[in-house]
């Protein structure tokens, strides 16, 4: 197991080098620059433009800028936002809990609904239940997020008035952000109304963000279960007269879970990288929203630092998933 971990960990170094290079190259490839962004329609005296480029360190050759950036990152400094003049790491840490909170509930919703739905579809193959699960999941997967979110807002918030439109909590509750996780902060504040408000604000974004992972998980669980249910050992278990639930949940599901966990791992990575559209529509103050704004304003340190931090998290999640395989299926550790 130790060599397995080492082997996986060794891959992280080149991945990080690739990520820093890619983040740096991509943001510099986008036309425009932060100084241009400052001036808008207004003209800018060429001397002043040159002075600002110098102040931002953008007048140096790109390889020099990249080398400086890597050196800075190795010292644990992700730089300062060119727009807000705040340290990038501080901004990220302020916003990341909101993203994690939303991603956690979206994933919980996707797993809690998607896994049983997939199992039922597999067990009731070619029945109405199967077609219903697959039909709904295909629709969910194909639905444009933006449109889906607006539809839900118009129906549940505007027409029925059951849920708030956007944000994390109603404005009348000024809950101190001690952890950054609104549900926990509301609980700590001891205000039941604030907690209820935070829960109601989570409902629609969770539903929207969880839709695609739910569809993917349901479909993957179904196909994986169908494959496993045809295996000899499942037939043997049935022949031995084991109860059906035991055959399905103990013998079949555990083996069927490996590809499902891979998919969940990938989806977690995607969710944490900032559910950009969901965050934008629901005014959810997370890192997705922040990164989009960083790209729009050509805030190089924000984009580079943000991508690097998110990549670190995605790589960690994937490493964890890889390790989890080893636990679920011991053959993988020795492969």
């Amino acid at each position, binding site marked *: 197991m130790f060599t397995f971990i080492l082997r996986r960990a060794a891959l992280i170094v080149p991945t990080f080098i690739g990520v820093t290079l890619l983040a740096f190259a991509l943001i510099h490839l986008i036309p425009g620059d932060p100084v241009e962004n*400052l001036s808008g329609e*207004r003209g800018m005296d060429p001397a002043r433009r040159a002075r600002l480029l110098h102040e931002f360190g953008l007048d140096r050759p790109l390889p020099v800028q990249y080398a400086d950036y890597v050196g800075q990152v190795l010292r644990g400094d992700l730089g300062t936002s*060119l727009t807000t003049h705040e340290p990038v790491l501080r901004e990220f840490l302020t916003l990341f809990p909101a993203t994690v909170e939303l991603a956690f509930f979206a994933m919980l919703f996707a797993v809690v609904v998607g896994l049983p739905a997939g199992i039922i579809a597999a067990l009731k193959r070619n029945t109405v239940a199967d077609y219903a699960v697959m039909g709904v999941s295909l629709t969910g997967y194909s639905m444009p997020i933006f449109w889906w979110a607006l539809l839900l807002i118009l129906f549940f918030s505007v027409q029925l008035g059951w849920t708030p439109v956007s944000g994390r909590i109603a*404005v009348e509750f000024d809950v101190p952000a001690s952890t950054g996780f609104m549900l926990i902060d509301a609980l700590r504040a001891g205000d039941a109304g604030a907690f209820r408000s935070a829960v109601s604000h989570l409902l629609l974004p969770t539903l929207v963000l969880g839709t695609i992972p739910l569809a993917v998980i349901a479909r993957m669980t179904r196909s994986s279960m169908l494959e496993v249910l045809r295996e000899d050992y499942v037939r043997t278990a049935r022949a031995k007269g084991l109860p059906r639930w035991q055959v399905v949940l103990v013998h079949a599901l555990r083996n069927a879970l490996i590809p499902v966990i891979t998919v969940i791992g990938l989806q977690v990575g995607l969710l944490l990288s900032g559910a950009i559209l969901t965050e934008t529509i629901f005014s959810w103050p997370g890192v997705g*929203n922040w990164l989009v704004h960083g790209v729009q304003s050509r805030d190089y340190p924000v984009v580079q630092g943000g991508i690097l931090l998110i990549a670190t998290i995605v790589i960690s999640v994937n490493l964890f998933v890889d390790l989890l395989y080893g636990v679920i299926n011991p053959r993988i550790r020795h492969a």
Partner: protein
Amino acid sequence: MRPFPVKTRHRLLYAALIAGLVALPAAAANKTLVYCSEGSPEGFQPQFFSTGTTFDAVSVPMFNRLVEFETGTTNIIPALAESWTVSPDSKVVTFKLRHGVKFHSNANFKPTRDFNADDVLFSWSRMADENHPFHKMTAGQTFAYFDDMGMKNIVDKVEALDKYTVRFTLKRPEAPFLADMAMDFASINSAEYFDTMMKKGTPNAADVYPIGTGPFEFVSYQKDATIRYKAFDQYWKGRPKIDNLIFSITRDATARYAKLKTGECQVMAFPKPADLAEMQKDPQLNVLQKQGLNIGYIAFNVEKKPFDNKLVRQALNIATNKEAILKAVYQGQGQVAKNPIPPTLWSYNDAVQDYSYDVAKAKQLLAQAGYPNGFETDLWYLPVTRPYNPDGKRMAEMIQADWEKVGVKAKLVTYEWAEYRKRSKTGEQPVMMFGWSGDNGDPDNFFVPLLGCEAVKGGGNVARWCNKPFEDLVIKAAQTPNKADRAKLYEQAQVIFKEEAPWITLAHSVRFDPIRKEVKGYKMDATAHHYFTSVDIARDSAQ
């Protein structure tokens, strides 16, 4: 009528008391106004930034300037300066400061004195003096607006004559100076606050937790989510009518509209043009509108052939059907433009005759210019929606079709927005779509940055048109103290502009502020800011 028995009277009295106690909190309930804003402020120091979003969140609610614009107009009114005098040569402006103006306080700072000349000197020299201890505190920190307005080239020195008198000596007569002083970058900070923070070893805190003299005090900011303010009890103009002001940051316009409908906010910023018709039908909403202080235009690069020829420029002006563009692109929400300044601005010359749409005459002019069969050109169009132009591409397609009729084949070209602006400043474009929203309600703010000879260098003059008679008039106007005399000079400048036709002036768009019916006393601002000082909320809907 028989009186109630004593026991019953006592019971009624108790019931009334209890009812009164229950009703008390409701009667004393705070009035909170929620404004759905379109984005987060870049920071909380108005001197650093230049976006309307930041001004709405910072300089408007929390700060004052020496002079300010009267809400709804561009008239300059006294603010922290209660009066001012201008010397006969227009080079010395002396402000008499208001007495008894209080600064806000916070956990780290309790002001020990009222606003005075030290605060004006501090606020100004921090921006102007590169050796000032607070000039360069944070890497990359700039005083963008101050620099962009060229204030260093305008103001020679600032002195305090006494505690309540400040004298600005200018390098040259500059009539728009007062309007410049009403702009957000000229907000007055507390010198005492900065000194205190410096002594505490946290000088940056003064820019993060704002202290001003404005109608609202800062309470808290949750990044990208909410900004909270409370009414400043000691506000020199009188306490605002609402108790709390909350900015609910909602980037998506559809979500802002949904929140306005559900009552989660009472005022929203920047509605989508497509939603306006529905909003106007909603009985719970009032959709206020105001002529924008803006201009959308097509600029011919006069340094490039064939646009160096005035006849070609005039011909294409005549060949463009502006009324059709107004209907299709602005959906009627605007006004055809004939001058480079909007009609809401003083000195607008209504006597100027616009080029009327006439295909035959345009062809004739082109032939006269030596292009009987027309020519080919690139037409750059806006890649983004701007306040002065809702749909650049649609507009470009319509112009392309119009010009085709006179033999001019326009190839539509665009770039990513930042790249578009960058390239335009180098003069790469033959013809381009552009526009402008005024900063301060002075005509100079349109003529000089968009059509002045200096602006060719800076890239703001995308027509690269430098016309001596026009330039002389505009410079003379800036140095003329009398407003009526200035207006005459600008009126003459507009005649030259129309004759020379460096632009096709397309339209002045209308701005909209949708508010809920319970919001009372809200006035739209001329410079597109959102002011809540005099706003009230009908009692039955107060939160």
